[in-house]
């Protein structure tokens, strides 16, 4: 080979080596200068969390919550929903915070449009997502408050706890950890988190006037407020067009009322809540209907 070429090649290698060395030293110095003091407690808390990255705590990822719960005395230790009581206890212990009760909650779909035989007010052509369909005059369902059924909740659930059965979301109680991701995903706000110990519930989200509800849905709540009047515990309220139940109050009152609200509801939409049993039954019913 031409010695001139060899010389050139060697020169090139030497030059590249020098550049590499220069940047290497630079990086090493930078790493030293800007090193972040890692807080071992944050690391420890992070390890104790469920690690599902579900965002249910309201922080960006598990690390976000770990940092917040360690550095901010206001942040309670029981926000990691998938971790349930065990994780909450551990976080409380690590951070020296007071352990607050962890209630077993579940996502509840507050709509019964299948049962109510709700029709479509128009045909929807477009991107198959609930939010997109909702942009077109509130979605195709005749009830403007009903579930649209394109499964954005199911898609959003980090625990795969929602199955779409014949275009309607069904929550699997064994998988749902009540992280609330679906509640945030649903553009119709028909999903809410409810205590598994709840005694009664209203699976309807309409805020419309009774006469309009009757036109579109066979079972929807007509806001007659019978339940509000009859409840001896004063646990039921009608706020903002919607029936809301103060579950702790209802549970505290106990079985003595014999669920008079359920009995008096003319639409049979105030229902007994039998926890997991009822949900399983609802799922079976939908499967059979489909």
């Amino acid at each position, binding site marked *: 080979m031409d010695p001139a070429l060899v010389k050139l090649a060697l020169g090139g290698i030497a030059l590249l080596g020098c550049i590499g060395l220069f940047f290497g030293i630079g990086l090493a110095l930078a790493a030293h200068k800007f090193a972040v003091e890692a807080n071992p407690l944050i690391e420890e808390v992070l390890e104790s969390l469920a690690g599902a990255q579900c965002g249910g705590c309201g922080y960006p990822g598990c690390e976000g919550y770990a940092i917040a719960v360690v550095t901010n005395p206001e942040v309670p230790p029981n926000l990691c929903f998938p971790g349930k009581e065990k994780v909450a206890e551990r976080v409380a212990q690590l951070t020296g915070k007071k352990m607050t009760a962890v209630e077993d909650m579940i996502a509840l779909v507050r709509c019964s449009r299948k049962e109510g035989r709700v029709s479509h007010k*128009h045909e929807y*052509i477009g*991107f198959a997502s609930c*939010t*997109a369909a909702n*942009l*077109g*005059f509130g979605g195709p369902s005749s009830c*403007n408050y009903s579930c649209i059924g394109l499964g954005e909740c199911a898609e959003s659930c980090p625990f795969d706890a929602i199955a779409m059965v014949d275009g309607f979301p069904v929550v699997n109680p064994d998988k749902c950890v009540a992280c609330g991701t679906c509640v945030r995903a649903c553009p119709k706000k028909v999903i809410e988190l409810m205590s598994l110990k709840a005694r009664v519930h209203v699976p309807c989200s309409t805020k419309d*006037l009774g006469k309009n509800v009757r036109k579109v849905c066979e079972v929807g709540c007509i806001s007659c407020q019978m339940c509000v009047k009859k409840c001896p515990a004063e646990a039921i309220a009608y706020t903002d067009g919607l029936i809301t139940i103060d579950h702790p109050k209802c549970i505290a009152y106990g079985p003595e009322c014999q669920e008079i609200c359920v009995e008096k509801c003319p639409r049979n939409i105030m229902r007994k809540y039998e926890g997991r049993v009822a949900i399983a039954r609802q799922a079976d019913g939908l499967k059979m209907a489909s």
Partner: protein
Amino acid sequence: MTSLLTFPKGGVHPPASKGLTENLAIEVMATPDELEIILGQHIGAPCTPTVAPKDAVQEGQVIGEVTKGLGVPLHAPVAGTIKSFGMSGHPMRVSAPSITIQTNKEAAPVQYSRCDWQKLAKEELLAKVHGAGIIGIGGAGFPSHVKLSPPPDNPVDTLILNGAECEPYITADHRQMLERAQEIVEGALVILKILGITKCFIGIENNKPDAIKTMTEAAAAVSTPEHTVVVQPLQVKYPQGSEKQLIQAITGRKVPGFALPSAVGVVVHNVSTARAIYDAVVLSKPLYEKVMTISGKGIKRPANLLVKVGTKVSDIVEYLGGVTPELAKIVMGGPMMGFAVSSLDIPVTKTTSSVLFLAEDEIDTTPHSQCIRCGWCLEACPMGLEPKEVGLYVEAGRPQDTGQFGVFECFECGCCAYVCPAKRPLVQFVRLAKMKAKR
């Protein structure tokens, strides 16, 4: 003859479809028995009622007022009785709070007479515009008195009246320019006085030669050495009537990203808003009537109607003899930027410019498919954005990452969706992206 002006980037040429109504004179529709006045008609907080159920009201009486922030008052379009407060259908919000008025059929219509507005000071004129409830009735409903008080650090030197009416089907502005030319031009003089400037252009698309002629004559009649009103014919290209595009076509000035027209020294008003300002200032008449186009093969008798604000679409349909069996889709607004609705229980607001009853052969129901990356949407977009990327990101479940494609600059003109050979609902993707992306 001046050469035809236009904006430089993008744009499309949808069929004009104006033949159904362009030769029909504006017809005054009989007042229905009941009106539903939506409380939030302008951009800003909705009005709070200043009346109570069972109250008797006079035509033109204030019935709602904004308590804080941006907004204008709301007036009773008829004499009658307040029946109730409730909810009414709304093309975008599905339902919205409203006041229902029972019309008193016996009451004589109010007569308004001219006042000597030239004697009034700028502040008095502005107060009249505000008090009459004037908003941008050709567009989104931005309160006009705010537009007429540009920030002092942006001196304005040009007024543009928008008579482009580039949306297919709609002929309401066209008819007003033919039938109300003097009033529009006098409205322009009022605006010039408020702004303290001397130059006004009226932009009209070249497919309305009769309107160009009538308006040119009316403009020449009022032009003096002190203030000039000049009609500027424009090339027929959608969206010629969009604010930023119109400014660039007429003045050559480019409004930067998120800035307002006043940033380049321009204020734009629709011709129908100019007429409403004429009503407000010259006649002291509040805004409670609306000229609108009812068109499409799905309605028995297409028309240009003058209706009371609060008239329900169902009343209009009845007045025009009902719908035809071919009706397939109802759109409130134009076919490019309007909103499809599936109810007739929707009252007209100050900003409703048309209701279209479209037959099967006037719409396209082909389901959309995958993007073939033809790039047509990029070419069509007048803002120079990348609609296809927004669509792909939304489909991939990443709407939050679409800020980089300028979604917030998109004004939803629909050019991209119009040209897309894959029929992709690009505007819908953008609207979804806007809800989830970070600014």
